[in-house]
């Protein structure tokens, strides 16, 4: 049986790849990593967003073969030793979440935005975040939290 091997949140995983599942279902249903959520299954909502080798991907449309040898980070792996990432801190401080279902994807997308642009303006935020849906309408607080996180990151560096 073909096996694939990869790393998720710093843990090595080796699992049979007989069923060509998309990565999302492999993570959620077979590895029990449930932070990435199913919102649409077709790559249009962003609820499932994770990092694959430092890039954002939507695992609902990533075939599992593509992760052979890759290193994945899900929302569960963002805080290191229980120390929250500044974006997570900012999300708590601005009380962003309503139902919370979209927020793993929002947070990881914001992390990526701030990595490439430490000081985004409103247009940059629009551009980077508009592919992630929040049905509860937390966009206004996401904006505030991104700016808050940018300030936190600048303080620490």
């Amino acid at each position: 049986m073909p096996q694939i091997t990869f790393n998720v949140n710093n843990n090595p995983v080796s699992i049979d790849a007989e069923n060509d599942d998309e990565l999302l279902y492999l993570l959620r249903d077979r590895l029990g990593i449930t932070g990435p959520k199913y919102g649409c299954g077709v790559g249009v909502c962003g609820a499932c967003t994770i990092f694959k080798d430092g890039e954002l991907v939507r695992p609902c449309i990533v075939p599992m073969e593509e992760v052979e040898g890759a290193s994945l980070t899900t929302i569960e792996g963002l805080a290191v030793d229980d120390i929250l990432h500044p974006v997570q801190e900012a999300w708590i401080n601005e009380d962003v979440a309503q139902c919370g279902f979209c927020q793993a994807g929002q947070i990881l997308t914001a992390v990526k935005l701030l990595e490439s642009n430490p000081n985004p303006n409103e247009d940059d935020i629009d551009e980077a975040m508009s592919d992630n849906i929040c049905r509860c309408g937390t966009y206004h607080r996401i904006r505030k939290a991104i700016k808050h996180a940018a300030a936190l990151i600048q303080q620490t560096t």
Partner: protein
Amino acid sequence: MTKSNHAEQIETITSSQKHDQSDSDDEHIVETENTGRRKFIGYMLKGSSFAVALHITGGALRPQDANAQLLGIPELADELDLTDLLLISGDPFYYDYLIKITSDNRVRFELPRMEVGQGILTAAMMILAEELDVEMSSIDATLSPAEIRRATGQITGGSHAITSLWDPLRKVAAALLLKIKLSAAVHFGLSVNEISTENGFAIDNDGSRIAYSELTAGVEGRNDAARLAQPKDPSQYKIIGTQQKRVDARDIVTGKLDFAMDLDVVPDAMPTLVARPPSLGGRVITFDDSEAIGLPGVLAIKEVPLDVDANSSGVAVVARSFGEAFRARDALNISWSVGAAENLSDAEVIEQLRAINLPTLPNIPLATDSVGGEFIFPYLAHAPMETMTAVADATGSKVRVWTGAKTPLAAQAKIARDLGVLPTDVELNVIQSGGSFGRRLFFDAAVEGARISQIVNRPIKLMFTRQDDTKFGRARPLSLHNVKATYTRGFLIGKKVLSFDHRAATAELDLEHGFGDGITALGGELAPAAFSQTIWHSTQLVQYKFGVTSLLLNEKKFVVPTSSWRGIYSGTAAVANEIVVDELARAMNKDEYQFRLQMLDDDRSKAVLRKVSQEGNWGRSMEKGRAQGLGLHKEYKSRAAVLVELQTFKDPEKESKVTKIVVALDVNRVLNPTGLEAQVIGAATDAITYMIRTSLHLDNGAIRESSYGDFEIARMRNTPPDIEVHFMPPNGETPGGAGELVVPAAAAAIANAFARATGIAPRRFPLRDFYPEG
């Protein structure tokens, strides 16, 4: 471990009179912790504990008074609104809470409401912390499973959650605190007046402290004195009215908050999908699973009846992962019968609604003029981020379900009927969910899940795919509204408004979910057949001095399954009214703001209107193509005013953009400003979604849209950075509702801004589809 959490909670209640748990029970609980339901940690450990459940019946209005008022009042909502109806019917049951002080001096609390992101759990904990003199962080709160004894007191809908918790929860908590103080008085040998309380400790006049958990003498059994306990005076509040972040914020940002599909409550519950018919109401004629059954991970494939439309059927696929279930589902060969409404499309629904709509009053020739017209609001998906989901196990003697249900008792009853068991044999656990917007008033996945589990004889995790939820899920009903305001032409005296008529004809709104049970429990006089009339009349009103007003509803059932959408009828009807108010102002050569102020029949509404006008700088000059717009709404004992600024484009490729939102709210008293602000902004975002951007379409018996790709709800770029929310100061009344309040006001403000910017009278929505060049 065979017992469920639910069974343990029941046991906890019945055993609350004993305060000595055996060691084996201690071990038992430790096992519970290990199953992953971390929220249940920390109760019923060794030592003392006590629970409180007071039954205090009777409210300001008794049912017979209510019925007397129901008859013959055209604008019922002014006198007795849906909030009152829910309070009257739920009142006898609202005083039943499980509140326990555990041996480690924490408070365990079970909320008989549903958390879907609206922050009700946080707000309830604030009330409890305030009245019990404990810290928020020492409360462990969970959602109550369906409990038959709660009868009409376990429903989350109609924006009445805070209002219905306010008096009961404060009184029950105050009673518990009095019990604690009485016990402390015995302990210290003092009178109760000499005892103070703080952060979970009772303190005597020398400053000696004892933890609540150490106090048992006198706290058990009847203690009628406790009924006399008075909740705190608002001047003493330390928590209520302050900004409190969501209690689960950290779990959310670290991915730890579990939704139904993340639970590991039944270890062998397997992912399940259903192949659904291509049109609404379709059925399986035959199916061939030979190419699917042998695929990796596939565990079972069976034909199943579908819940949303009981006449239709589909094929359920159970597999090791949802990905495997998708693959097997797609490999099925199914021949379908088409649904009964094969040729039905939006245009036909509109024609049929037009035919049943009641006429508005005619003009008096020469003497009067009128404004208004026909408004059409399309079918609209609720599209909560988490689709309908349920974990179901119907293999044992008890049917067990974990799901997000706002009407859990109705869900429990329906599952029992469907499976042929007693409601007491259905354990329905309420799980925090990813949004509702009205969708989770129904429990389609729970009923379908229990049924499928029984048919395949295994525990399952049923998930509606996004496509299922969009195409076969429920929708806000399509509705048609004839609104007409008549005024004198005013040759001699000034123009005067004579009448305001609203005639709505809507696709039938399904209210079977037990929202109805609560209200029909008033004594049966409100016949279920008239139930939608009751909801209409208890929610719709005109808050202006417009002479003779009459608001009437007629409904007709079509194939599309429906459910209330945030705002129920107000999200459409009240919006149409506010658009006509603007048109009336202009017809009478008045400024839209001044006209409202002059005609309003409600001082609280005037105050919020003034507030948005000041804060939003009403009347400021704007570039061509841009305009401000106003909208008001009065419901749930609350008032809202919204001012928006809108930019429109002549270019059909570009949609109108809301560039600023100013909201003023009067909810009598704000419990948690940050939570309320989130609700307000969410509601305004909803208005952008359905007024400007998107809708469903019925095409030959099927819904055309399938996902967020074509049902295009508002995204970051469609919402403005500039949003202000203002709250009016507390006025001493019971807090009003607010979860839906801002939807109609914001929607109306958008439409009114659009009309002022373009000169187009908005009649159909979403605007970008019907007025692409506006």
